[in-house]
C-alpha cells in the first residue's frame, strides 16, 4: 500500500508545532499502524531527518502507552482498538491519514506525539487503591465475592489508562478513567471501607490536575479501546452524592 501521513511535529513542550506530510510507500496491509511509523522513521533517520517521537511499548493492546489521534479519532477508526492493534488493512491504498497527539490541558505535549499523562497517576495516588499493606491479608476464601460482582468489577478494571477518553472529550475530562477505578474497587467487598473517601478524594485530585468537568458528551466511551461503559460515570456520580451526604 502507498499512503500519505500528515503528522504533528513539535520539537519540545514550548516549541510551535505543525503538521508535516510524509509519503509511505509499499507498506504491508499486515503491518500495524505503529509498524508503519517504524518504517517511516527508518527512512527519516537515513535521510538525516529527526524521526517521529511516539509512545508505545507492549504493542499488544494492554500497556496503554500508545496515544495517537488518527483522522480525528483517538486510537483511530476501528472500534475498541488501541493504536498498536490497529492494522493497515483497515485503510486503503492512496489514503491520506492525519496523526496527532492526545490534546488536553492536563496532558501537555512533550515532543511530537508524546504527551505527559502523569496526571492520571496523581488521581490514583489520591485514593485509587485498597489499603492492604503486605502481609495483613486473611485467607483469600474468607471473603466470597458474588460472581456477578467480580465480573462487573473485572469489566471496570480492564481500563488501561491510555487517556483516549480525555483526548476525545470536548472538556478534556478524565471522568471515565476515574469512574472505571471507582467501579472496580467499589464493586468488591474489600473496597467498601474506603468507598466514600475514595470518590471524594479522586474527584478532587482530578480537578486539581486540570481535567475538565463531565457534561455527559459520551465521546469518551466511543473511543475507549476497552469498551468501558458510560454507565460507570453514573455510578460514580451516585457514589459521590452518597459520600458527600453521609460524610
Amino acid at each position, binding site marked *: 500500500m502507498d499512503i500519505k501521513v500528515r503528522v504533528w511535529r513539535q520539537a519540545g513542550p514550548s516549541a510551535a508545532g505543525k503538521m508535516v506530510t510524509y509519503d509511505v510507500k509499499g507498506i504491508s496491509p499486515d503491518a500495524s499502524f505503529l509498524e508503519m511509523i517504524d518504517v517511516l522513521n527508518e527512512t527519516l533517520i537515513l535521510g538525516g531527518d529527526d524521526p517521529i517521537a511516539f509512545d508505545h511499548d507492549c504493542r499488544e493492546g494492554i500497556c496503554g502507552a500508545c496515544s495517537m489521534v488518527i483522522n480525528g479519532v483517538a486510537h483511530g477508526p476501528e472500534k475498541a482498538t488501541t493504536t498498536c492493534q490497529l492494522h493497515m488493512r483497515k485503510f486503503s491504498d492512496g489514503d491520506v491519514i492525519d496523526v496527532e497527539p492526545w490534546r488536553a490541558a492536563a496532558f501537555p505535549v512533550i515532543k511530537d506525539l508524546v504527551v505527559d499523562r502523569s496526571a492520571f497517576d496523581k488521581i490514583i495516588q489520591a485514593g485509587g487503591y485498597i489499603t492492604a499493606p503486605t502481609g495483613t491479608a486473611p485467607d483469600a476464601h474468607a471473603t466470597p465475592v458474588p460472581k456477578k460482582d467480580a465480573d462487573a468489577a*473485572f469489566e471496570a478494571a480492564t481500563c488501561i489508562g491510555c487517556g483516549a477518553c480525555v483526548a476525545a472529550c470536548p472538556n478534556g475530562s478524565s471522568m471515565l478513567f476515574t469512574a472505571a477505578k471507582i467501579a472496580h474497587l467499589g464493586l468488591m467487598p474489600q473496597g467498601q471501607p474506603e468507598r466514600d473517601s475514595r470518590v471524594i478524594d479522586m474527584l478532587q485530585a482530578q480537578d486539581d490536575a486540570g481535567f475538565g468537568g463531565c457534561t455527559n458528551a459520551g465521546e469518551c466511551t466511543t473511543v475507549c479501546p476497552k469498551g468501558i461503559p458510560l454507565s460507570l460515570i453514573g455510578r460514580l456520580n451516585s457514589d459521590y452524592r452518597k459520600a458527600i451526604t453521609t460524610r
Partner: protein
Amino acid sequence: MTANDFWAEGEPVFDKAAPDGPVETRWERRKFSAKLVNPANRRKLTVIVVGTGLAGGSAAATLAEAGYRVKSYCYQDSPRRAHSIAAQGGINAAKNYRNDGDSVYRLFYDTVKGGDFRARESNVYRLAQVSVNIIDQCVAQGVPFAREYGGLLDNRSFGGTQVSRTFYARGQTGQQLLLGAYQALERQIGLGNVEMNARHEMLELIIVDGKARGIVVRDMVTGEITTEFADAVVLASGGYGNVFFLSTNAKGCNVTASWRAHRKGALFANPCYTQIHPTCIPESGSHQSKLTLMSESLRNDGRVWVPKKAADCPKPAGSIAEEDRDYYLERIYPSFGNLVPRDIASRAAKNVCDEGRGVGPGGLGVYLDFADAIKRLGRKAVEAKYGNLFEMYERITGEDPYETPMRIYPAVHYTMGGLWVDYDLQSTVPGLFVVGEANFSDHGANRLGASALMQGLADGYFVLPNTISNYLAAGPFKKVTESDEAVVEARKQVEDRIEKFLSIDGDRTVDSFHRELGQIMWEYCGMERTEEGLTKAIGLIRALKEEFWTRVKVPGKGEELNQNLEKAGRVADFIELGELMCIDALHRRESCGGHFRAESQTPDGEALRHDDQFSYAAAWEYFGADGKPVLHKEDLNFEYVHPSTRSYK
C-alpha cells in the same frame, strides 16, 4: 571445544546465604536468623528500586510500607505500564482449593522437575510456600480474580501440571496483578514514602568501597544525567528476550540495568536459558516489530494439529479430513497431550514444521483448533473463557478463530537467566539485590506456565523485604557524595558513551543492527543449537559489534527526548549479552529445558540432559570487552526431587 577458546574457568561460586536442614523450614529459619532494623532506623535508610513491574512495584510498595525511604525508577511514562501488565494466563498457588491433591510440596516438585533440575531446591520450595500468601494479598487489594457462582475463587490448569492451581482474571491476569501492585505503590507515593521517577533510565551502577551505593540515570525527557545514592540498590528490570529483536516482550524491555551491573562485577548466570513459548502468532512480514503471545491456557481446550501429508498444507484447514490430521501432541505424549510443558510443545511444533508439514506463510505455523471445544461447550462458553484472546488474534491476523483454527508458532518469551543471586536475592556485589525476571533463580532451565507472575510477586512482596533488612541492619552506610571518585567515574562513563553514539554519524540505523543481531541469535542460539552454529554466531556477533561502533547513525542530541539514543544504548548492551549467551550455550553440551543441543539427544530425538557434567548454574564474570568471560560454577544438589528423565508420554 575447550575452555581456552572462548572462556576461562574460575573458582566455584557458593550460595552462602542458603540455609540447610529440612526444606520445609528453611525459609522460616532464614527469616528468624536475619537481622532486623528497628522501625525508627528504617526511615534513615534509602533503597533504590529500578523497575516497576510485579517484582519492582511490589518491592517498592512493601519496603515503603515497612518504613524505608524508597526511590523508584522506570523507563515508561507511568509505573502502571511495566511489561508484567501483558501476562495473560494466570498465577500459580498451592492453595489446593480444588481438593485435587495439590500441596506446597507438589508445586515445589513440579517446578523443580519442570525446570529440568537446573534450579535450587531451597529457592523453589520457598516460592511454593509464599505462593499461598500472594493470592491472599492480591485478593485483599481487590484484584478481580475469576470467581465461581458461590463467590469462591475459580482455578484452571496450565501446561506441565495435572492439578488446577492457576488463579486468573480472564486473559488479563498480569494486568490485574500489576494494577494491584501499582496501586499499592501509588499509595506510598501519595504518602511521600516513595519518590517516583518515571521516564528515567538507569545507565550505570555506582559501587563505593565494594558496595552498591547508587545509580546513574538519564531523564529521558530532558536528557539530564544525574547520580542517585542509596544504602542498597534493587534491580527489578525484567528479562532480556529482546536480544532476539522479535520476541513477545514489550519494545522497551532491555538488559541495560543488569548488563551495566554485570560489567561492574555482578555475575550473570545461565544467560543462554531462554524460554520459547509455543503459542504465539506467527510472523507476517519484514515490517514485524514484535510477536504476540496467545495464552497457553488456550491449550486446555484447543487441539494442536498439522496435516499428515505435506501436500495438504496449503489447503484450507476445514477441507482436511479428520483422518488426514495429525494431532501430534496427543499422539506422542498421550498422558499430557496438548498440555505438555512449553519446551516440549515448542520443539514438537518446530519438528513438524521442519518436516515440511507447517501451515501458513513460510510453513512456519501449526493449527490450534477450537472446533471440538465449540461443539462440546458451545460458542458462548468458549467466548466467556477466551473471548479477548480470540479478538486479539482476529485483530492481528484478520482471521476469525471461531471459524478457522488459529495458527501458532513458538517465539522467544521469557529469559530464565539473569544476574546471579544468593538465597537472599543478593548479587555478588554487596548491596545489589536482584528480583523477578532480572535474576536467574527459581525457574531453572525452563519455566512452567503461570510461574513468572508468582516469582515476581513472591520476590517483591515477601522475600526481598525480609532478606534486605539483614543487609540494611549494618547501615546507614557512610555518606556518598558527587565528588567520590567512583561516582565521578560512573557518570563520566555514561556521558562518554552518549557522546560516542551521537558522534559516529554512520549510515545504518540502530534498528537494523538490532534486527541483524536478532536473526543471528534466533538462528544459532534459539530452540536448537549446535557447536558449529554457536561458534559461527560468536564470530558474526563480534563483527556486528565492530560494525555497530563505526556505522551506527543516531540522530538528534543528548539533551532532549531522543528515542533512538535510548535504543542505541540498549542495543549496544544486547550485542555484548548476545555474545555471552552464545558462549554459555556453547559450553553447555547438553539438551536441557528450553534449549536443545543437537549433539545431545536420545535415539528417538528427545532432549538428553547430562546431570553428571552439567548439574550446576553457570555464573559468568566479566573480564573486559576483549577479555574472556570467566565461568564460576554453582553446584546444584537435589535432596528431595531426584533428577529423572522428564517424560510426558
